[in-house]
């Protein structure tokens, strides 16, 4: 029977026996490659990003000069009349708004999927929520340019219905357009964890709450919300984090408004100032780690 596996029965048996006898060696073989990969291509890379943010770039040769300096951070916090702090503040504010919009949109849908419709519809609606994730995110972002543009669907609709007398250019190329687009592309990441959390709530809890005299609002506040919270937090982690780093939506629908993702991308691209870009990226990283540490306390990461 050993012949099925090829490679000499004696040898495979010997290896197999040796591994069975030495659980530590087995653990090392199983864990080693993945841990090594993550260590080199993620942890070390992140450390190098932090180190790069403490270096400078030679203005003339564009080479990285490995002299330690806090100049990049000084520029982030005080440079250009607080431009970078404003970019940072704008991004955090947008990320917060987008997260709240997505919670508001996702909760009723997740509730309807998890608690109202039949099993068959549940499967169908689950599919409906994930399908958009499988189509090109770039094209989905770009679709909003088609919708919000001055020749776009929204304008035509508003002109046709008489709400506007002529097409408006106020919908596209601003922060509102970025917020709508972000809320749109990340919505499934909010719906799925909330749905998972709501689906797990035993029906008897809601009945018990009602039997004990609680009204709809009290049941929602005292029973449903605490149990749904891990899902909401998990979704918020994804949406907030994705928003903090995205540079595509601002580039395609944002006009001139600068956000962190775009600023980082430019330093590593056209503006070619790696150390300053690394400082902006490190600031984003620290913000997200703080956000994660706060949300971790709620136990959401165990329930993602």
């Amino acid at each position, binding site marked *: 029977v050993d012949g099925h596996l090829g490679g000499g029965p004696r040898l495979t048996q010997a290896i197999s026996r040796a591994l069975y006898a030495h659980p530590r060696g087995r653990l090392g073989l199983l864990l080693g490659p993945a841990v090594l990969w*993550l260590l080199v291509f993620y942890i070390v890379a992140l450390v190098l990003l932090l180190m790069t943010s403490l270096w400078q770039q030679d203005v003339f040769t564009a080479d990285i000069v490995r002299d330690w300096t806090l100049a990049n951070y000084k520029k982030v916090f005080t440079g250009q009349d607080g431009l970078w702090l404003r970019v940072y503040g704008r991004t955090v504010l947008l990320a917060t708004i987008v997260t709240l919009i997505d919670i508001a949109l996702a909760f009723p849908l997740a509730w309807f999927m998890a608690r109202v419709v039949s099993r068959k519809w549940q499967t169908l609606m689950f599919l409906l929520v*994930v399908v958009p994730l499988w189509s090109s995110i770039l094209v989905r972002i770009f679709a909003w340019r*088609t919708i919000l543009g001055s020749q776009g669907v929204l304008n035509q609709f508003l002109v046709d219905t008489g709400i506007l007398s002529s097409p408006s250019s106020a919908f596209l190329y601003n922060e509102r357009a970025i917020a709508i687009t972000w809320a*749109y592309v990340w919505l499934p990441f909010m719906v799925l964890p909330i749905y998972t959390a709501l689906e797990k709530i035993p029906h008897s809890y809601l009945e018990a709450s009602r039997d004990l005299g609680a009204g709809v609002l009290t049941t929602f506040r005292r029973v449903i919300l605490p149990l749904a919270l891990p899902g909401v937090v998990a979704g918020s982690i994804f949406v907030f984090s994705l928003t903090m780093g995205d540079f595509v939506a601002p580039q395609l629908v944002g006009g001139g408004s600068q956000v962190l993702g775009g600023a980082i991308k430019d330093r590593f691209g056209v503006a070619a100032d790696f150390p300053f870009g690394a400082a902006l990226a490190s600031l984003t990283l620290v913000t997200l780690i703080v956000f994660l540490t706060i949300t971790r306390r709620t136990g959401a990461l165990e329930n993602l």
Partner: protein
Amino acid sequence: MGGSRTEKWVFGATSFLVLAFLYIPLFLIVLYAFNETNINSWPFPGFSTKWFEKLFHDPVPKEAAWLSVRIALASTALALLLGTSMAFAFARHRFFGREVVNFAVTLPIILPGVITGVALASFFLFTKTDLSTRTIIIGHTTFCIVLVFNNVLARLRRLPRSVEEASRDLGASGLQTFRYVTLPSIRTALIAGALLSLALSFDEIAVTFFLAGADNTTLPLWILGAFRNSRSLPEVNAAATVILLISLPLIAIAAYLMREEGSTRIVEE
């Protein structure tokens, strides 16, 4: 809950609106793929399939798509290897630093792609590695490991050890047990993880942007470039429509497998 009629109506109507919000842009993408002109204006200018013809005769997006497929396959293969073995380590062993490793594997998917991208760009700059297809694959593998890891770990947790012990007691070697008992039981979890990984890699832009060499145009990079050239916009819509059509059966398979798993979890533990 069954619920009251009002509850059904209120949540049903809201859900319908939210789903409409999700689908109107998708509908417009497909519609504008059949645009007669290259201006995405409303009302719809006129119907034509010429952009599909242009797309099918254009070698550039085809090469880009083929590069994306190769990168997705390579990253997924690596992620399957690393993620599966790591899942076995987590399911079968207690060890020091478990929590830290678990956090490290999920971090690339929790943190935005731009962070992974610029971190690895700094890494390759420091090690004086030229950017190439290989550096893209390294970036993609880093965030794909967790997708396989979560799926396989969830399955292994539910797989009773007694089945494998029975196999050993009946005289099968460790490798035979793995081949004939363990592997078949985790097969669907492997497929689900692989599909997620393929899909994420194929559509990835944030990491790729910083790790692609000058001549490594993946499909998303081609799309991003095409947006600057308004003449080819409907061709991009046509490409997006083709991608959607190809991925629909894959979504159905993945969703079916993940439902069977009884979980929609993106991150485990």
